């Protein structure tokens, strides 16, 4: 069984930074903003490192924590060898685990953190996740200035970074349970249609979660997938209904909820920062939902393998949150 219930694991606090396009979007109540993609650094990659260190430093400061108070730092991003997270981690004297599962990185980090807190007696774990539109474009697509024509199924990598503090101290957000997903490949190789790549993985993880914990989809006030996009969200719902006979009433997709239509991001936002930003800066500010299931979906996309005509595998991890 890949699902696990936690006894008393809480998401104590979080700190967010959003990029120039994101601050004009549907997001509210973020902590810091960036005026441009350089963030006063020399390169985009170094800017992303600074975004990560700013959110971690502020989270530490707000909670009056020293490095020695924190048992573990879990970090992830989209760059090769998750270099951004490593270059951020070297600033601290905190044991570090780097993780990668593309846009499912945030729930993967929460699962790791929660397990260490629940089972290994760790007291405080910080998770940090970031994505930067231009480092990601450079990594996965064309040079930044090229601006190749994009189809309507393509998504726009979110710029932002989020640090969360996971621990035993009771807070408003309880991490109730989680499910680790399996990697799924439905033979889609279109790198401009990540929603289609990831939808079956999201469905599989949702079903696994509901079966393992003997729950119905209506148990949750909201099921929030992270970043299938507007097109992928429709595919996900249809796939769930035709393949598993599950009809979702309380469903939103983070990618589709992020940007305004006028921002011309086509199918919406993507990137590891997308799901946590929408969760913390939109869904939680509404105070409408008590039981939330977040399903982070990641296309495990490698340009090398795609160039070798291979299809793209996808992964999804789910975390159930109970909000006061």
């Amino acid at each position, binding site marked *: 069984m890949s699902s696990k219930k936690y006894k008393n694991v809480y998401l104590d606090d979080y700190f967010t930074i959003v990029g120039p396009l994101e601050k004009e979007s549907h997001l509210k109540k973020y902590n810091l903003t960036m005026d441009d993609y350089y963030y006063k650094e020399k390169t985009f990659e170094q800017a992303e490192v600074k975004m990560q260190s700013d959110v971690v430093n502020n989270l530490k400061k707000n909670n009056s924590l020293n490095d020695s108070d924190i048992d573990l730092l879990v970090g992830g991003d989209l760059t090769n060898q998750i270099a951004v997270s490593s270059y951020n981690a070297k600033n601290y004297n905190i044991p570090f685990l780097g993780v990668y599962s593309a846009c499912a990185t945030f729930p993967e980090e929460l699962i790791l953190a929660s397990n260490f807190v629940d089972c290994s007696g760790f007291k405080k774990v910080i998770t940090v996740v970031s994505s930067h539109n231009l480092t990601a474009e*450079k990594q996965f697509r064309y*040079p930044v*200035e*090229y*601006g190749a024509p*994009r*189809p309507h*199924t393509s998504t726009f990598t979110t710029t932002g970074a989020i640090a969360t503090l996971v621990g035993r101290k009771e807070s408003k957000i309880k991490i109730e349970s989680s499910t680790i997903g399996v990697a799924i490949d439905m033979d889609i190789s279109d790198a401009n249609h990540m929603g*289609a790549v990831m939808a079956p993985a999201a469905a599989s993880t949702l079903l696994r979660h509901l079966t393992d914990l003997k729950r119905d989809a209506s148990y949750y006030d909201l099921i929030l997938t992270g970043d299938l996009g507007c097109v992928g969200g429709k595919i996900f719902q249809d*796939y769930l209904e035709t393949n598993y006979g599950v009809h979702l009433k309380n469903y939103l997709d983070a990618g589709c909820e992020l940007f305004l239509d006028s921002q011309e991001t086509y199918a919406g936002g993507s990137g590891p920062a997308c799901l946590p930003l929408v969760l913390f800066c939109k869904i939680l500010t509404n105070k409408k939902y008590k039981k939330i299931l977040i399903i982070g979906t990641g296309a495990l996309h490698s340009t090398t393998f795609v160039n070798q005509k291979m299809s793209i595998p996808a992964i999804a991890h789910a975390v159930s949150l109970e909000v006061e």
Partner: protein
Amino acid sequence: MTKEDYKKLVKKHTPKEPKLRNIVVAFFVGGLIGFFGEFIIFMLQESFGMSKVIAATWTCLIIIGTASVLTAFGFFDNWVNKCKCGLIIPTTGFAHSVTGSALDYKKDGLITGLGANIFKLAGSVILYGVISAFILVIVRVVIGV
């Protein structure tokens, strides 16, 4: 659900690209650039008394230079998506692909960054351009035109 069935399901939800509109837009934007090129050739011939071949070479250089400067100002970033392939297929696109790559990698070192990556996109154009020119020359010699 089989992978084939899933592909059908995906297709059902995938929005159709407005291909005809894209083609028309690209045709007019590309044509407009061609029109400007012809205009510059005409002006060079009239003002400087150049032969048509020399004027065409200068025009090519002017268009490439202008496109490269526009890349630096972020013009293509905003306009390629609107003009579709109308901006990419003419020489403007070639120049832009070179300067775009150069801008991306200039901070990764002159050799390992800029030098190694400047033809990242344009490399294919150069390679296959040279090969097809070579083949066409052979054809021309054989036919004896």
